[in-house]
């Protein structure tokens, strides 16, 4: 059995430090796992095996020197391989954002979150698949290929960070970075049975994240267990002078000790347990809430009355911002370019031929929402309702410390189910959109399985900068449950 890829992030760090295995061995193990499973999963868009092995050798010599002298603290994740969603720039590695319009873009800089992890010692294995420009809930909108759910290859892994979630679920990486604009970390984490955090808006720098909906975009992380997600979060969070919207708030001190949740007030929002959600999803989430109660938490009902408006508000604000964010892809600066006789011809053809249908749909939606004569009725009105949604959360967090809710109405749906019905696809995000609109953090972890053997996730939402409460509750939960230790059967099958 492959022992290395089966380890959690913390176990991997420990093994590298004690010298149980080298960073080169770890990188090689993950590359082999990727090679084995990638034909079934298509979790990656680009791989960087040579660079990764070269970095591993450097890490190994630093680890060896450190073991010898014992002095000079080494970076916390030295020699640990990770996967990065292909909307985050890594200097020198192609970054496509899942789009054919950026097929050959090699950024000369790294995203701040990536840079902080590189400083912490990680090694980038590759860039994971995503819906084009992170627009989607299934990774089916990728301009490259569809990623499959490791638990069932006929199912989607969720999206848009489906590549990162599938990679972690299938032990192709011990952890991964993702981005979440309307649920793009939380929903794939739930669909793939792993843990993931969407931090408070402004907690992690967006510098180097290819923008989709700038006022909603958050960089976050996936790992098998909450404590590992918390570790990565603690390394990437904090003010960045290159992002004017990143908050100047003290560096997080994540303290996970204990599983006692006495005094914790958990809110159950009426609006998230509605007709139409899959019975097994509701049952698993309610059971998980009971587990929190047994750990000492007090549970009470809360109301987030404007929840039903989150979907229309989101689909005005995010596309409006996207319509401007994607204007730079005009065929002038980034290859490939579709040649034409005139400047406008180059714009039309490049964008027409290289953007996918969903991206075009959202650019048109957003352009319309911002147009003269429509702005007040659409974008302007959406901003006002967004304020109401934010107020819902503020009022709820006067009564409770966190809110527990399902992540999505169902478990992973079959590939192709929503391909002709964008609205049905948009409805997949109804429970995740409000946190983005309000800017509050959301933590997802597995709480059970449905009858088809597909994972069910639960999300905990907290007040702004309340990640530590979420991690504490999630970690306590995982100390008394083992859902996060379950792995898709395909991992073992691949070895037999």
């Amino acid at each position, binding site marked *: 059995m492959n022992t290395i890829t089966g380890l959690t992030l913390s176990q991997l760090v420990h093994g590298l430090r004690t010298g149980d295995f080298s960073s080169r061995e770890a990188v090689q193990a993950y590359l082999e796992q990727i090679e084995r499973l990638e034909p079934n999963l298509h979790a990656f868009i680009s791989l960087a095996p040579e660079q990764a092995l070269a970095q591993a050798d450097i890490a190994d010599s630093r680890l060896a020197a450190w073991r010898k002298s014992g002095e000079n603290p080494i970076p916390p994740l030295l020699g640990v391989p990770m996967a990065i969603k292909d909307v985050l720039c890594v200097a020198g590695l192609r970054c496509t954002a899942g789009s054919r319009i*950026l097929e050959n873009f090699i*950024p*000369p800089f790294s995203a701040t979150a990536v840079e902080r992890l590189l400083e912490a010692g990680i090694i980038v294995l590759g860039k994971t698949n995503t819906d084009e420009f992170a627009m989607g809930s299934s990774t089916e909108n990728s301009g490259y290929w569809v990623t499959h759910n490791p638990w069932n290859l006929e199912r989607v892994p969720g999206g848009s960070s489906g590549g990162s979630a599938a990679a972690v679920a299938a032990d192709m990486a011990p952890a991964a970075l993702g981005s979440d604009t309307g649920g793009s970390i939380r929903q794939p984490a739930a669909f793939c049975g792993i843990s993931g955090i969407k931090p408070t808006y402004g907690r992690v720098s967006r510098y180097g994240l290819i923008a989709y909906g700038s006022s909603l975009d958050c960089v976050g992380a996936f790992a098998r267990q909450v404590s590992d997600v918390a570790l990565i979060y603690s390394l990437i969070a904090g003010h960045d*002078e290159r992002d*004017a919207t990143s908050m100047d708030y003290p560096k997080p001190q994540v303290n996970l000790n204990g599983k006692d949740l006495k005094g914790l007030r958990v809110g159950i929002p009426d609006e998230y347990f509605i007709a139409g959600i899959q019975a097994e999803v509701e049952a698993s989430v309610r059971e998980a809430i009971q587990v929190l109660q047994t750990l000492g938490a007090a549970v009470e009902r809360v109301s987030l009355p404007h929840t039903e408006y989150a979907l229309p508000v989101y689909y005005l604000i995010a596309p409006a911002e996207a*319509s401007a964010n*994607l204007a730079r892809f*005009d065929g002038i600066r980034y290859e490939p370019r579709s040649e034409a006789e005139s400047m406008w011809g180059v714009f039309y053809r490049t964008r027409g031929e290289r953007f996918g249908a969903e991206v075009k749909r959202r650019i048109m939606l957003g352009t319309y929402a911002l147009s003269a004569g429509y702005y007040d009725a659409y*974008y302007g009105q959406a901003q006002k309702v967004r304020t109401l949604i934010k107020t819902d959360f503020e009022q709820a967090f006067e009564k409770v410390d966190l809110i527990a809710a399902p992540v999505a109405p169902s478990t992973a749906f079959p590939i192709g189910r929503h391909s002709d019905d964008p609205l049905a696809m948009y409805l997949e995000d109804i429970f995740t959109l409000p946190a983005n609109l309000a800017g509050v953090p959301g933590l997802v972890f597995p709480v059970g399985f449905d009858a088809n053997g597909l994972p069910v996730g639960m999300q905990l939402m907290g007040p702004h900068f309340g990640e530590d409460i979420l991690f504490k509750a999630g970690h306590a939960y995982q100390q008394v449950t083992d859902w996060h230790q379950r792995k898709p059967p395909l991992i073992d099958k691949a070895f037999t």
Partner: protein
Amino acid sequence: MSNIYEPVIGLEVHAELATRSKMFCACPVVDTTQAEPNSAVCPVCAGMPGVLPVVNQKAVEFALRVALALACEIAPSSLFARKNYFYPDLPKGYQISQYENPLAVNGRLTILTSQGEKVVRIRRVHLEEDTGKLTHIAESGNGSINEIRPAHTLIDLNRAGVPLLEIVSEPDMHSAEEVGAYARALHSLLRYLKVNSGDMQKGAMRIEPNISIRPAGSQTFGTRCEIKNLNTFRGLERAVDFEIRRQSALLDEGKVVEQETRGWIDDQGITVTQRSKEEAHDYRYFPEPDLPPLVLDRAWVEEILASLPELPISRLHRFQEQYKLSAYDAEVLTAEQETADYYEAAVAAAPQVAPKVIANWICGELFSLLNQTGMTLAECPVTPRALAALIFLVTSGEINLGTGKVVLAEMFHSGQSAEAIIASRGLRQISDSSAIAGMVQQVLKNNPEQVQSYLAGKTGIAQWLFGQVMKAAKGQANPQVVRQELEKQLNAMINNGY
């Protein structure tokens, strides 16, 4: 018969802020006419995917200097916005500007026209970023098909992201003269505040007038046309004049003025249609989500207000009052801060000389020397103190005015002091009346015919005789003494019964 129309004109001015770095990144601001293309570009100003803007505090400070100098109300919190349009000189596909909630509103600028002073209201002052520069290259080649280079366009992003200040006036102007005066007053103000290079040739200040006309006495506005990107005062005035005449002719013929954007063709002296109303962009402005509201610390704004220099119009008023200068002289001397400083330094160095006399020397002789050599005052080899010393030598009678001018030219070219030039060339003025009396006597003796003509009543000949005396004195005689002595001796002749 032509009707009488009243032109109504407002101006949008774009001024580059002379900060060291760009508006939203750390790239240096370079002279785009000199620097290697795309040498001052980073991922942020190139609009690469994933980058974010960060506001340059110095640009905000410069903008506040201008807004405060224009007596604007400063918004405690203002918003940046995205102005969306596609063009290859705009790397992000939108320009970061300000739209709703600009930095400052409701200011005023005093301008000087032949009718006197006038206040033009300022509607708003806001910050934005400049675009890159496109150079269109025509097809070229040497005839061989392989050598032909098709027409193409080069993009230089050095200017992309340079901070721009947009200053919008109310439509308070009614003639090309007022428009010119406004533009000059603003140019002068920006230079005083040291926020703009003032180099209009290089596009440091671009002016866009909005012009409409209406029947004299009417209170409603006519349809306006905007003329894009004028960068000389003369071109601005000519373009406005042309546009007023064009619109008047249209209305006289019973036609209508179409709302449109027009361009000025300088060598033909005409404006032409660039973009009609139908083709006008919908910029789809919305608040820039990458930048939080620009919240200003009140104490900082107060500090900037307190640090403003004396502004051109105040200085002009003071010069008129304190130095008894005409409005014209005061305007000329205060248009540039260097000139005003130079003048005041010269005045301070020559307390015995009337300030008006010093003004005449600077506006006359010194400016003409600078013009001839193409130098600026900053490069002038004659210091205010040296000029003051020269003027004092003239007013105290040490040398006469003509010699003074010759000496100034010499000072200008050699950098020597007036004293040194006068001493080395023996130019000191002869004021000794007995010496001059002798010269006069000699001249009268040598020119009996002319003397006779004078005595016969041709008094005009006295000027010729004066010239002869000055010539004999090699120009160094005190002309007043010569005149007195000449008059005295000729009168004596008359009295003696010639």
